[in-house]
């Protein structure tokens, strides 16, 4: 078990070292390809370390902690840095390392046309991200977790805005940063409140405190709610989900890594890690569950009307995050965590496959694609694997974890959220196969002038460097699916007998419906849209949430800044200017005392002596 601690530490620090080297050694970074290789090799080493560490740490409910004192205070230490290695933490570590490694390899192909300096910058950010995310996963206390949380947010900003010359990308990066920051403020307040109540940031100490019960836990509801708000911002729960679709402005590998597998799951991981705290506040958990289920349904609805393939996947991610949160809210954090792992695999797969498509065709618009199955068979196969996993078909990765979540929701007593999740499952299958039918099957669309790329007529399969990660992920997705079907992990509950058929049936129904609408064209998509016009229109407008946020930003925040600026200029500066003007005037008036005539000065001296005598002899 001790070995796992050191291995985890090495897995965490190695990318940090790569980041330091890349950021400080400027010629290496500017050279492009060598920087990329450094980052890739380091991330492979981290992956190996993570796997070995997981093997050593596979005993459940045993934690290995390594701490270094950081901020000393009067009696003891305020907080430490280090690692807290549990079985689940190492699994998450593997996910982060694996997806990070695969994405970095993939990016070599995807960003092959980038200038070397930009490529170096990209890989520097990637290394920083891997370092921060691992630090978050292994954090033994809230302080380190929060610091890595913020670092991860920073990397997200840097990578979304990687093509910063494009105004949409810059705006999307700022939007992501702002909205997650709003959640982070509450997170920080929650952490500090928790500390003021219990006196510690450390997870292990808090765990013991909770086990022992006691006065310190009164009023924990507000604390856990604030912590949840931080997670809601990062994990794109309603209403903070609006940044995730816009984050698709970044390169597709970035979307695969950050906005599918790792960063957005940090919120879920946080709630999983601190589940012992949330168990003490069932009301907050119920809220988590409801919001999660609602987010799942809302995002699924929005995904049905998107024509940008990446946005479909983005809303799908939001939806799946809602699933995970719902499971946690039902009280079974393990189910949510399991889905986090499987989702990480197949969503990354889907994003990378979509990236291959975009790279080949030159456009994100699915209506400009069509018949890609014939021209890009390999990509089609892996995309199909990912889609089936997402839909929850047996023998694919997502099936078991999705079913776990549904049973968790049922067993936790959240029946209305359960219904929402079932409906969302139907819609998930529907919108994913909508994409399959429109983009891959069916007649090719008229060739449009895409931005870059080879045009639809020349679509071909991805080069090997991009295809290899795809195949690895697809194999992993299928492998996990088959493994779980044969020997699935024990659940804490027994699902009702009708649940599995319901789940599978709903998924199949979704596929069939999609086939009817988009494959056979037996049902007109437009007529369907008109039938549900009141949802459809709203969905197209993204339920006006983005506009609401933009309004708040422009009116409230910028307005507040303007008024504060006015106060600063006219009142604060004004007071100082008035004071200085008065000083100058007073000086001007006072200089008239200096008449230049000696007798006046004698006058002053005599007056002074008189006053002195009076003061000394004043009767006490």
């Amino acid at each position, binding site marked *: 078990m001790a070995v796992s601690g050191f291995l985890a530490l090495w897995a965490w620090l190695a990318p940090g070292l790569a980041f330091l080297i890349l950021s400080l050694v400027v010629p290496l970074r500017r050279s492009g390809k060598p920087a990329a290789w450094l980052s890739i090799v380091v991330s492979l080493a981290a992956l190996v370390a993570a796997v070995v560490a997981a093997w050593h740490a596979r005993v459940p409910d045993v934690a290995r902690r390594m701490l270094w004192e950081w901020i000393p205070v009067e009696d003891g230490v305020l907080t430490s840095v280090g690692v807290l290695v549990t079985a689940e933490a190492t699994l998450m570590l593997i996910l982060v390392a694996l997806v990070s490694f695969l994405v970095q390899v993939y990016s070599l192909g995807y960003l092959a046309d980038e200038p070397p300096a930009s490529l170096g910058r990209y890989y520097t950010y990637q290394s920083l991200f891997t370092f921060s995310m691992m630090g978050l996963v292994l954090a033994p206390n809230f302080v380190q977790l929060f610091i890595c949380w913020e670092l991860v947010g920073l990397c997200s900003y840097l990578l979304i805005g990687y093509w910063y010359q494009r105004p949409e990308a810059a705006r999307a990066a700022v939007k992501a940063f702002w909205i997650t920051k709003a959640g982070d403020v509450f997170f920080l307040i929650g952490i500090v409140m928790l500390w003021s109540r219990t006196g510690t940031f450390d997870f292990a100490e808090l765990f013991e405190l909770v086990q022992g019960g006691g006065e310190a836990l009164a009023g924990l509801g507000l604390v856990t709610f604030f912590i949840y708000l931080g997670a809601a911002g990062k994990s794109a729960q309603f209403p903070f989900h609006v940044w995730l679709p816009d984050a698709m402005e970044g390169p597709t590998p970035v979307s695969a890594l950050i906005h599918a597998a790792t960063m957005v799951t940090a919120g879920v991981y946080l709630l999983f890690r601190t589940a012992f705290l949330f168990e003490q506040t069932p009301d907050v958990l119920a809220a988590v569950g409801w919001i999660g289920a609602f987010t799942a349904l809302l995002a699924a609805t929005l995904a049905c009307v998107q024509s940008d393939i990446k946005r479909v996947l983005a809303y799908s991610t939001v939806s799946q995050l809602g699933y995970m949160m719902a499971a946690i809210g039902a009280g079974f954090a393990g189910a949510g965590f399991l889905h986090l792992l499987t989702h990480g695999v197949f969503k990354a797969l889907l994003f990378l496959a979509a990236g291959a498509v975009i790279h080949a065709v030159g456009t994100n618009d699915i209506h400009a694609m069509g018949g890609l199955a014939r021209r890009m068979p390999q990509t089609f196969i892996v995309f199909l694997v990912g889609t089936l996993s997402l839909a929850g078909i047996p023998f694919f990765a997502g099936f078991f974890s999705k079913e776990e979540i549904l049973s968790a929701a049922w067993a936790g007593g959240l029946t209305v959220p359960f219904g929402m999740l079932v409906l969302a499952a139907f819609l998930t299958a529907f919108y994913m196969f909508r994409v399959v039918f429109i983009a891959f099957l069916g007649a090719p669309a008229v060739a449009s002038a895409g931005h870059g790329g080879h045009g639809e007529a020349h679509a071909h399969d991805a080069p090997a460097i991009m295809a290899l990660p795809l195949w690895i992920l697809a194999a992993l997705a299928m492998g996990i699916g088959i493994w779980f079907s044969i020997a699935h992990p024990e659940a804490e509950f027994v699902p009702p007998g009708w649940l599995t058929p319901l789940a599978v049936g709903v998924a199949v129904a979704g596929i069939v419906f999609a086939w009817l609408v988009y494959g056979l064209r037996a049902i007109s998509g437009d007529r369907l849209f008109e039938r549900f016009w009141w949802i459809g229109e709203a969905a197209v407008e993204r339920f006006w949430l983005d506009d609401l946020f933009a309004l708040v930003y422009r009116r409230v925040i910028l307005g507040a800044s303007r008024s504060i600026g006015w106060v600063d200029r006219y009142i604060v500066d004004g007071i100082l200017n008035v004071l200085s003007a008065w000083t100058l005037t007073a000086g001007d008036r006072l200089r*008239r005392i*200096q*008449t*230049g*005539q*000696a*007798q006046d000065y004698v006058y002053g001296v*005599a007056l002074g002596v008189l006053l002195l005598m009076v003061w000394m002899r004043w009767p006490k």
Partner: protein
Amino acid sequence: MTLQAYLTLAAMLFCVGLFGVITRRNTIGILLGIELMLNAVNINLVAFARFLGDVSGMVFTVFTICITVAEVALGLALVILIFRIRRTAVADHLDLLKG
């Protein structure tokens, strides 16, 4: 006479001298006022020396008289110099240090 009488006499002389210093226009008049003040101090010193039995006060008086003589000499020399340059001995006109 009592010590108090001498001190009172000296105090009055001092204030008269101060009045002269403050009010006289002519620089030499100011110097005369200063003379009066120093005189008052001398009377004070001698009176104390006599009544307390300590001869140091008289020694001090010798010193002050000598120093006063030197100061007056130089002071009047300065007045004459200024007179040569500025053509005036009226103190009010010597206000080059006016702020």
